[in-house]
């Protein structure tokens, strides 16, 4: 009897644990499908759901918050998806939220992603509301683009490889890169450039002031630029200058003509200048004249002492003396 009781207890435990396992499994599976949570429904229409099925997950901000309840065709271009979402996240989903069909990983199950609009504010979604949807990213299209990208990338890397090979083979570049003096020079150059720039800045400032002054009509240039009256005068001056220049030009051309003539030996001056024989004669003549004038001087001196002319000369001397005295007297008078 005792044996039977203990075996009954063992059997009871065995069966009870079996039932607990059954209920536990049923509950855990059910809670994973949101069967025991308080839920609400929202809907969204898509053009293409990419194989989304009943029971797929619904994610909000990357968290599983619900499951797909129903996928049905409404019209030839519209598929309506009904989602069951936990009440816990009800307050976070707004009316302007957007539903997108996505994939869990690259090849995983399909799912619906709900994301809030970027503006962030808005009314909370209500039971049975229709959410906006965006076109899902199709893996095929993505792969097609990726293929193109890969091709481009291949070309780019090939070019890059060629460039690096060239760089590797060129010793001059490496020596340039490794040479420290180059860097030193570059540093110096940069310092110089900096100094230059500073100077330039100062210069520009000065120039600026100058221009400012000129604008305001200060200085010669300013007057020139700003004073209209002087401008007119200047214009006149320039015109006159032009005329003068023209005249000068004429004169010069005349002179030129004369000189030409002189050079060629035409006319008196030409003869004077170009005939050497005449020059010799002239020299001799001049000498003769000099001698003659000396003699004449002697004659004149002799004449002074001659009695015939002595009276005249004395008289002249007296007049000169008198004029001098008069002028002196005049000066005294004025001083007084």
């Amino acid at each position, binding site marked *: 009897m005792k044996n039977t009781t203990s075996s*009954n207890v063992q059997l009871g435990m065995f069966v009870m644990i079996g039932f607990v396992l059954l209920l536990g499994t049923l509950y855990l599976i059910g809670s994973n499908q949101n069967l025991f949570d308080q839920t609400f429904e929202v809907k969204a229409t898509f053009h293409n759901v990419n194989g989304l099925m009943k029971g797929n997950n619904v994610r909000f901000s990357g968290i599983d918050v619900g499951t797909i309840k129903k996928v049905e065709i409404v019209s030839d271009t519209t598929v309506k998806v009904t989602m069951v979402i936990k009440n816990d996240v009800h307050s976070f989903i707004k009316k302007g939220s957007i539903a997108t069909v996505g994939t869990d990983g690259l090849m995983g199950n399909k799912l619906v992603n709900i994301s809030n609009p970027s503006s962030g504010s808005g009314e909370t979604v209500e039971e049975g509301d229709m959410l906006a949807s965006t076109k899902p990213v199709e893996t095929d299209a993505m792969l097609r683009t990726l293929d193109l990208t890969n091709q481009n990338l291949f070309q780019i890397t090939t070019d890059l490889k060629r460039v690096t090979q060239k760089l590797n083979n060129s010793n001059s570049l490496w020596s340039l890169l490794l040479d420290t003096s180059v860097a030193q020079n570059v540093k110096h150059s940069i310092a110089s450039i900096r100094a230059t720039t500073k100077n330039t800045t100062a210069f520009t400032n000065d120039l600026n002031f100058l221009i400012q002054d000129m604008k305001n009509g200060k200085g010669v240039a300013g007057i020139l630029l700003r004073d209209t009256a002087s401008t007119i005068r200047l214009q006149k001056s320039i015109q006159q200058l032009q005329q003068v220049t023209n005249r000068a030009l004429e004169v010069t051309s005349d002179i030129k003509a004369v000189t030409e003539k002189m050079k060629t030996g035409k006319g008196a001056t030409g003869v004077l200048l170009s005939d050497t024989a005449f020059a010799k004669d002239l020299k001799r003549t001049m000498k003769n004249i000099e001698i003659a004038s000396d003699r004449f001087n002697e004659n004149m001196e002799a004449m002074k002492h001659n009695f015939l002319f002595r009276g005249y000369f004395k008289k002249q001397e007296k007049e000169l003396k008198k004029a001098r005295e008069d002028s002196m007297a005049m000066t005294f008078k004025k001083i007084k």
Partner: protein
Amino acid sequence: MKTPSYLQQFFEETGDISRFAARFFKEGFKPRYEFGELVRQAFFIGYKSLPLVGITAFIMGLVLTIQSRPTLVEFGAESWLPGMVSVSLVREIAPMITALIAAGKIGSSIGAELGSMKVTEQIDAMEVSGTNPFKFLVVTRILAATLMLPILSLWSNAIALYGAYLGANIKGIVSWSLYWSQVFQAISYSDFIPSLIKTFFFGFAIGVIGCYKGYNSKKGTEGVGNSANSAVVVSSLTIFVIDLIAVQITDLLGLT
């Protein structure tokens, strides 16, 4: 044209087993019920089979995980290991292993026990003493097997999943809570319920065939051995046939 004798025998036996099963339903639902004997049989069939079923399930879970890992690693889908292994275990491996172990252990013991009773004419004596032997011996055993197999299967599910957890942690690292959340993420009612219903039929098949073989045992020691042997063979084969039918039905119902 004369039907070949072995084919005739096969159909004859199938017919007999069907009649036997029909008789189980006819007698089983009529009072009076042999509760004490039912509990005793349940204890032997259920509780006493647990260690064997548990060890087998544990090893199956562990081995399946270790075997699946390299393939999944090749695809870079190592993180799917718990999900994939748990679906295989719950849908197919745990119920089948349980049923086959039970067919070996329970089927043979029922066949041998009833066979020796039949040979030693205890069944006839029982009938003379006013006890309904079918009710007392057959109905209780079939019922116990039918009810205990699902519970054994639940146990083996749990133990196999624990084995798979250990298997997943031999080479990789999956935390306890992550493992279970991945498992329950992967398993759905459509995986679990059909496999649970299936085990009722497995249990019923084991009980019916074991009892039939024992109840109709031929005279002599050889007959007892034969009935024990054929009880195991036929019930194992029947389990596979039921599994085949079950998978077709679940597929038709769209519970994949």
